[in-house]
């Protein structure tokens, strides 16, 4: 019999988890891609505003993707997020415009100023998101119904509701939009134009919201018991149960949070566009799934990170910018590159994980 100490594996490097590995890959690829774009096209990519434009346009997508990442970590899926986002945006615009008599009555009764409409729109956004999250979460976690089916139903339901709220596209009144669309100017990241005038970088409020949510979700996933239970449930539901994790509650909470975040995303979307339309945020759920996957979240559950997802959104949209910059302006090129990109990342991920896990021997 050998001395027990001899059997201990001698490894110098700190062990890295699948989650960390996939996130690192995403960030590296994003950086490489951006540097490459800088070298080839320079111009627009040199200005920080390029990044800010992507962020401004996709703040809602970042928020939606955060929710989807959580859901995907538990091994579930939520495809209602795009519909909920669009529904919330539509309802928000209607509240701002005073088209909903309930809110008009409230504001008159309480003697509040017009800008309070924004607060009511926000509260309503949160409530709609919570409602979708609660119902879907309950059906999935407690009645054990397939998440795909439930959230597919949720998606149709939300899209249908938009038309019930308003058949025609709506545009928010300018005076309130002026408040919502205030941009934060960052002079030190600005650039000087041809006439030598400094144009500061501009960032929308929605981006701040999105960044705060990324940080909050990061801490939720990393530092709380609930967050870790998402990973446990996604890793092996049966084992998680045996280890004393409240599996039902975890699955419920994941969908609840996803619903809530879609509500917030809807509000941010409204802040950005100021428009309510049945075709708003079309395919946002698919873009969010793509971003999460590119960011290193596995559809099979248990692996994923919200920082990766953030870079996933950036990567996806930087590629789209690159495609446009390189002269392929027809919209289908963006779809084709997105598809190719997704394939590339999934291939890369499975190859890397296979190599990593083969090294560790059996099964």
């Amino acid at each position, binding site marked *: 019999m050998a001395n027990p100490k001899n059997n201990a594996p001698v490894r110098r490097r700190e062990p890295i988890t699948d989650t960390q590995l996939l996130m690192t890959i995403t960030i590296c690829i994003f950086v490489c891609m951006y540097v490459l774009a800088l070298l080839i096209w320079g111009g627009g990519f040199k200005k920080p505003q390029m990044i800010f434009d992507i962020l401004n346009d996709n703040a809602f997508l970042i928020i939606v993707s955060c929710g989807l990442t959580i859901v995907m970590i538990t091994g579930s899926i939520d495809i209602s997020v795009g519909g909920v986002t669009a529904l919330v945006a539509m309802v928000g615009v209607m509240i701002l415009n005073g088209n909903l008599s309930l809110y008009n009555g409230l504001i008159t009764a309480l003697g509040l100023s017009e800008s309070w409409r924004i607060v009511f729109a926000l509260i309503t956004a949160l409530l709609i998101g919570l409602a979708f999250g609660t119902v879907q979460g309950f059906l999935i976690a407690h009645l054990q119904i397939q998440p795909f089916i439930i959230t597919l139903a949720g998606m149709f339901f939300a899209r249908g509701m938009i038309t019930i709220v308003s058949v025609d596209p709506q545009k928010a009144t300018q005076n309130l939009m002026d408040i919502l669309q205030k941009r934060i100017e960052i002079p030190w990241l600005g650039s000087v134009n041809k006439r030598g005038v400094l144009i500061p970088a501009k960032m929308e409020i929605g981006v701040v919201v999105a960044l705060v949510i990324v940080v909050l979700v990061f801490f939720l996933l*990393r530092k*709380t018991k*609930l*967050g870790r239970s998402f990973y446990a449930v996604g890793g*092996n539901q*049966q084992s998680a149960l045996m280890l*004393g994790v409240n599996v039902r509650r975890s699955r419920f909470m994941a969908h609840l949070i996803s619903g809530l975040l879609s509500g917030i995303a809807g509000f941010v979307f409204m802040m950005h566009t100021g428009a309510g339309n049945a075709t708003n945020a079309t395919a946002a759920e698919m873009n969010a799934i793509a971003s999460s996957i590119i960011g290193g979240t596995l559809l099979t559950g248990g692996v994923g990170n919200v920082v990766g997802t953030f870079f996933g959104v950036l990567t996806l949209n930087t590629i789209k910018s690159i495609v446009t910059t390189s002269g392929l302006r027809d919209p289908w090129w963006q779809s084709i590159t997105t598809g190719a990109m997704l394939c590339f990342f999934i291939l890369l991920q499975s190859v890397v994980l296979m190599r990593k896990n083969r090294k560790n021997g*059996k*099964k």
Partner: protein
Amino acid sequence: MQDDIVMTMRGICKYFPGVKALDHVDFTLRRGTIHALMGENGAGKSTLIKVLTGVYPMDKGEIRIDGVDGPVVIHSPQEAQSFGISTVYQEITLCPNLTVAENMFIGRSQSRGVNWKAMEKRAGELLENLSIPARPKQQLGSCSLAVQQMVAIARAVDTECKVLILDEPTSSLDDKEVEMLFRLMRDLKARGVGIIFVTHFLEQVYAVSDQITVLRNGELVGEYLVKELPQVQLVEKMIGKDIEDLAVIKKNDPAADTHKEIFYAAKGLSSTESRPFDFHIAKGEVNGFTGLLGSGRSESVRAIFGADPVTGGSVQVNGKSTKIAKPLDAMKQGIGYLPEDRKRDGIIADLSVRDNIILALQVIRGMGHPISRAKAEAFADEYIKALNIKTASADTPIKSLSGGNQQKVIVARWLLTHPQYLILDEPTRGIDVGTKTEIQKLVLKLSEEEMSITFISSEIEEMLRTCSRLIVMRDRNTVGELTGEELTQERVMHTIAGGKD
């Protein structure tokens, strides 16, 4: 309660509809001992464990635990844990995507937050303390199965554990890993933990245990000290000697077999589940693999049929080299296999008796050559009559038949393909005595018609009645081959026990 006793179970009874799973079983666990719980399939080992961990309520009896006054009632695994009873299952019940430290602590803390530093420090101490070669920050999936098993044990031990139940922890480990696990078990034993070790590997019991409790058919056979119970006696106690009242069947003359032509021969055949072995069978021969449950007898025949991925070895059929990589290859060579797990690998529950019968023949003929309805009906009727299958009609779904009749349908399925070699893995398990005899008679009849048959059964009596040659396996290795005069129950048991007295 005596000082050194941590847990006693007295007069435990557990009934399932129609079955006495446990009948007045006693079990005593002493502090700082490893106590093996032994028994063949259906002996009641897992039922006893499940009663102790609160998975099943017991119908009668009492459990006492050191430090608790009076008998305790355990309702759930969580409650068992609060009494200091922890279980580590055969299948690893941890999350492979989490780190080692997380797996040891998740689901146990009361606070809402996770303090990674404190958790990893505590895990590191525990792992070092138990000499487990894993690091807290390592992802569990990157550890070998043995280390994962040990992490599960570390988790169990950390919860103020008095009784540690290891339910077949070694079944997916290799020799070296088993040794690592044993070291940990001895270490825990030295710390005063009482360990219940459930396994079916004899060698391992003798390598690590202090005491053995043997169960058979839900009854207590006895409790013994390992050093006072030779292996052969243990095997006897596990298998029992009760000879069933079966019709005496005439056995064919073993001497006649030696001159016959070899139908199938394998050299160094191995699969993902079985170790390399040599094997051959002559035309018209009936031979068998014997050994305790888990000895590798089923895995060996599965390798012959290509039911598990074959990893090496050479095969000759009728003197010609051939390759059998998957069941269809074997079927094309005229080999049929009746699987051990009838429900999972055998019957297609919702299909009719007729469809179940023609299945294998249809597969051999291929999709392009369907069997006509009239022919299928003729085949089905022929075999329902020939094998005396009791079914309302050939259209009845097979799931509504009794176990014995289902088994006959599967036999019919293979006979219809007119195989030259038929492997029957536990064809008589869970079926009534009458049908058992019928199947045994059928085996001998088929062998007279020059069909080669390999027969596996947990009942040695049955094997002795039908087989002219027995290959004995123990702990996944072939340990002997018995023919002619050697075919006696004593001799078989001695060989299973490794010839030690």
